[in-house]
């Protein structure tokens, strides 16, 4: 029993450290008209990740665009992603990584804490060499909008080495080549009604087979007097993808998944002070009896008003409504010193299940949340928030949640589904001093939670039976009068609100002498429930501290410490305390290899609360100590003729040790050791348009478990190979990839192999069409009847705006 309890405890502790840690070395620059390839190394917690994607935008833009990342293989730390070819912009390109965990929680790197900067790319250093042979003929540095913008560039000095067909003209973040006139020696781009502001222009071309680029020419456009139509700008993408499956397996019961398709579009438009937003996702996996897969959002933003209809994930406050989807209406009326936000809609759909003997279902859940902010976000502000999540009993036929027992006198009603009611009220305050880079705040929240509202509110008479007087100030309080707000009955957890219903957090974030410092302390009562947020770790206190320091782009140091302790209410017989320490460093000196290292430590133990004796559960002290460390380096070998190579190598090792005292002194329970080496090679050949990728991971794990009474050693290795070849001036790019993962030693001899053959094509500007045929096979030498092979054909279409 003790061992079982310890196992459960270790699992719950593992849940505490779900957060992944990652190292990313941003590319120095990106080239106008070229893709930006990003590599993210997950150094800790990768097994908890569902998907990783890149959010990117030009600084100053409101909305993020999104590109998914691809995991090299199941055991690889590497995730790869590509920001589509972008044009020159006035501002830097900034990006962050969005990590979605299996639990549904979203996390961002860098964190969305309001102070820590995003990763960014300098837009003004394209590939190739700068050439003075591009000569600007239109050399007015200042014009008015009435005059019109003219870019005239002579490339006569290049003749005849320059291929006019290779010329690309970038003005104000856009590839305007198609709108430019290009003659034998001059190119001309004209904009009759330019927007006021700074216009930056740049030209790239291929001369003697090498990429060359011009100066960046800057023109200031002053406002004109002629009234001009407000331009409508739009960004986003429209996409379609389909998967067709087939499977062949020894196990005849094994079936291929149903073919599926999905189409999605994200459009962001801007018209003067009006910003518009449309997000659509339509999938064949949508089932009206399951939670929604389809998504649709229509919204607009004005300087004082935001309105969204459809699916939206508002962030009211940490404890009331944060990051969870609501399908309905969301509005926010905001000014500099006040803001009122309201969200209302469906947070879960009604579903039913039935077979011959049993019927059950889930209720439709309605969510309502509101928040009032008083004060400035760039100063002092106070916020009052409230959220209510209620399962609507009327949404489900009674037969799906209740039936009457006739054969048992002790039980008359059995519930197969429970309708919940949850009310959370919170107050928060924040002081933000942007000039001093300081932000501090606090939030206190209280919740009421009813696990079964089906019996309805408790009566005043029943309240008296509990010794509660339903009179207050001479007025009789009847819970049924408040049932529209919250259902009070015996299923409340707890019945009487107490400190256990509270949660609070306080934080201090600041930028000090090159350090981004973050301190946070929180306590969550054992009965605190907030259905509008992802799972809170109840009955716990947490303290965390982190620091990130950068010396330019050369050295980045980050680290942190966190303490997690349960039994904050002091009503359990033991208290578990965990300490986490993490540290990372990336050193990158221009033209030299970059170095990186990371360290993670997690130690924990329990302590008996002598005041609360529980003879049925005698105290068994334990210790847990786990550690992981990694070292790595990378370098872009531009010196290698014909095959410049981007290399990344990481070596990591760690251990996980736990011991338990069951009354006979401490004895080891688990003693696991692991080590792995990861190598990533990216080659972009100069003589031919070939690009190859290689990723290799080999890891070894020794696991000693007293709980299971075994001592095992596991090994796995995975290889990922990919090659693509650009044809027809990068219009078509066929590729082939191979991915294999082999498990050996005490895993038995197993292997997964994936072969992919596909083609990416770019038939129009900003359009990508992808076709991919993948064959996956699984072989197990030790077990019969489990081998299988499957085929997947994927077709994708993406048009960016």
């Amino acid at each position: 029993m003790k061992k079982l309890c310890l196992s459960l405890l270790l699992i719950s502790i593992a849940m505490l450290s779900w957060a992944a840690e990652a190292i990313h070395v941003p590319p120095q620059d990106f080239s106008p008209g070229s893709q930006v390839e990003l590599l993210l190394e997950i150094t800790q917690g990768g097994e908890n990740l569902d998907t990783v994607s890149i959010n990117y935008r030009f600084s100053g833009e409101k909305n993020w665009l999104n590109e998914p990342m691809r995991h090299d293989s199941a055991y690889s730390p590497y995730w790869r992603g590509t920001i589509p070819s972008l044009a020159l912009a006035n501002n830097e390109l900034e990006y962050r990584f969005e990590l979605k965990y299996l639990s549904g929680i979203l996390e961002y790197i860098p964190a969305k804490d309001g102070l820590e900067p995003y990763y960014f790319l300098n837009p003004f250093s394209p590939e190739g060499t700068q050439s003075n042979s591009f000569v600007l003929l239109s050399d007015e540095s200042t014009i008015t909008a009435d005059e019109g913008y003219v870019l005239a560039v002579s490339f006569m000095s290049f003749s005849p080495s320059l291929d006019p067909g290779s010329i690309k003209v970038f003005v104000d973040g856009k590839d305007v080549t198609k709108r430019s006139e290009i003659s034998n020696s001059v190119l001309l781009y004209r904009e009759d009604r330019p927007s006021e502001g700074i216009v930056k222009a740049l030209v790239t071309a291929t001369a003697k087979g090498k990429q060359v680029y011009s100066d960046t020419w800057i023109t200031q456009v002053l406002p004109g007097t002629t009234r001009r139509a407000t331009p409508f700008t739009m960004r986003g993408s429209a996409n379609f993808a389909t998967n067709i499956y087939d499977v062949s397996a020894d196990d005849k019961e094994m079936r291929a998944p149903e073919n599926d398709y999905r189409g999605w579009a994200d459009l962001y438009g801007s018209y003067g002070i009006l910003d518009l937003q449309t997000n659509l996702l339509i999938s064949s996996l949508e089932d009206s009896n399951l939670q929604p897969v389809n998504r649709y959002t229509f919204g607009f933003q004005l300087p004082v008003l935001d309105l969204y209809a459809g699916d939206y994930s508002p962030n009211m406050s940490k404890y009331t409504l944060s990051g969870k989807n609501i399908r309905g209406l969301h509005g926010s009326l905001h000014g500099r010193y006040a803001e009122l936000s309201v969200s209302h809609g469906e947070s879960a759909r009604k579903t039913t299940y039935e077979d011959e003997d049993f019927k059950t279902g889930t209720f439709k859940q309605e969510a309502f949340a509101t928040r009032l902010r008083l004060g400035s976000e760039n100063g002092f502000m106070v916020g009052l928030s409230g959220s209510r999540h209620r399962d609507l009993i009327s949404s489900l036929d009674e037969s799906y949640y209740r039936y009457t027992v006739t054969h048992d006198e002790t039980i008359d009603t059995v519930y197969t589904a429970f309708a919940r009611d949850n009310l959370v009220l919170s107050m928060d305050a924040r002081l933000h001093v942007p000039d001093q880079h300081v932000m501090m705040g606090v939030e206190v929240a209280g919740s009421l939670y009813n696990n079964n509202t089906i019996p309805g509110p408790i009566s005043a008479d029943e309240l008296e039976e509990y010794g509660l007087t339903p009179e207050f100030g001479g007025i009789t309080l009847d819970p049924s009068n408040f049932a529209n707000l919250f259902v009070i009955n015996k299923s409340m957890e707890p019945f009487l609100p107490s400190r256990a219903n509270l949660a609070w957090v306080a934080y201090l974030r600041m930028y000090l002498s090159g350090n981004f410092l973050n301190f946070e302390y929180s306590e969550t009562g054992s009965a605190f429930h907030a259905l509008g947020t992802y799972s809170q770790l109840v009955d716990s206190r947490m303290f965390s501290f982190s620091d990130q320091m950068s010396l330019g782009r050369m050295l980045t140091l980050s680290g942190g410490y966190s303490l997690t302790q349960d039994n904050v209410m002091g009503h359990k017989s033991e208290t578990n305390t965990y300490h986490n320490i993490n540290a990372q460093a990336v050193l990158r000196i221009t033209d030299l290899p970059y170095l990186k290292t990371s360290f993670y430590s997690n130690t924990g133990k329990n302590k008996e609360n002598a005041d609360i004796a529980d003879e049925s559960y005698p105290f068994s002290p334990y210790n847990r100590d786990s550690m992981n460390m990694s070292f790595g380096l990378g370098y872009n070998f531009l010196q290698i003729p014909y095959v410049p190579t981007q290399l990344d190598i990481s070596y990591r090792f760690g251990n996980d040790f736990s011991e338990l005292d069951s009354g006979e002194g401490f004895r080891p329970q688990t003693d696991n050791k692991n080590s792995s080496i990861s190598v990533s090679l990216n080659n972009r050949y100069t003589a031919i348009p070939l690009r190859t990728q290689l990723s290799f991971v080999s890891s070894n794990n020794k696991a000693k478990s007293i709980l299971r009474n075994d001592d095992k050693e596991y090994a796995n290795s995975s290889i990922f190979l990919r090659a693509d070849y650009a044809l027809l001036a990068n219009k078509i790019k066929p590729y082939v990839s191979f991915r294999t993962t082999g498990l050996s030693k005490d895993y038995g001899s197993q292997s997964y192999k994936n072969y992919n053959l596909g083609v990416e094509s770019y038939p129009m500007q900003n359009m990508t069409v992808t076709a991919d045929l993948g064959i996956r096979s699984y072989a197990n030498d030790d077990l019969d009847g489990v081998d299988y092979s499957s085929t997947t054909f994927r077709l994708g279409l993406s048009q960016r705006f």
Partner: protein
Amino acid sequence: MKKLCLFVVILSLAALLMAADTVAILSASKGKVSLERNKQDLKFKKGEMLQNDDILRTKAESFAAYKFVDASSLIKLFSNSVVTISATQQGNKLNKKVNVDRGSVLASVKKGSGAFTVSTPTTVASVKGTEFMTRVDDEGNSTFIVTEGEVELQVKSTGQTLSAAKGKTAVIGSKSEPIVRDSSKDELKAIEQAELEASKSSESSTIRIPVKDEAGNTKYIEITY
């Protein structure tokens, strides 16, 4: 005979292709300015690509300017001027020629570029890095006022060569002997005046400069000139 015909056809095509090359761009125009190409008037805008044998005409109180594609020279046409543009590429150099039929033309030429000549009914002026005004009156008399560098002049009718340096004015009449003399104050002042007039718009212009007040609101300062 067939070979000769073929050669002629190829040569003609080549000539057509050459003729279609852009040799300059129109960098400014004000007032009544016309552009003639292949005996047809073209609609044009600032930044128009100019080709060989294009003819630019300015009328009264009008102005135009163009740059050759090697960015070595800026040609300004003042009121009532007619200019034919031509240039040929020789390697990386562009040999430029400005035929001034009538009016006043100011040429600014950088050193180190290809040959630059200004041709009038009476004279061919060759320059290498200089600035000078060319005037051709209705009788075809040509006047060259040199404000920078030096200009070599060849009289078309006699082949006689002259040289005019900074501060000198050469006058080559259709019926008189060519002379080189000091530029008069009036002539130099006339160049300045012409440039000043050219920089003025026929209508007043207003620019609005955005500024932000303490509250972050955008306000505009309007300057009319």
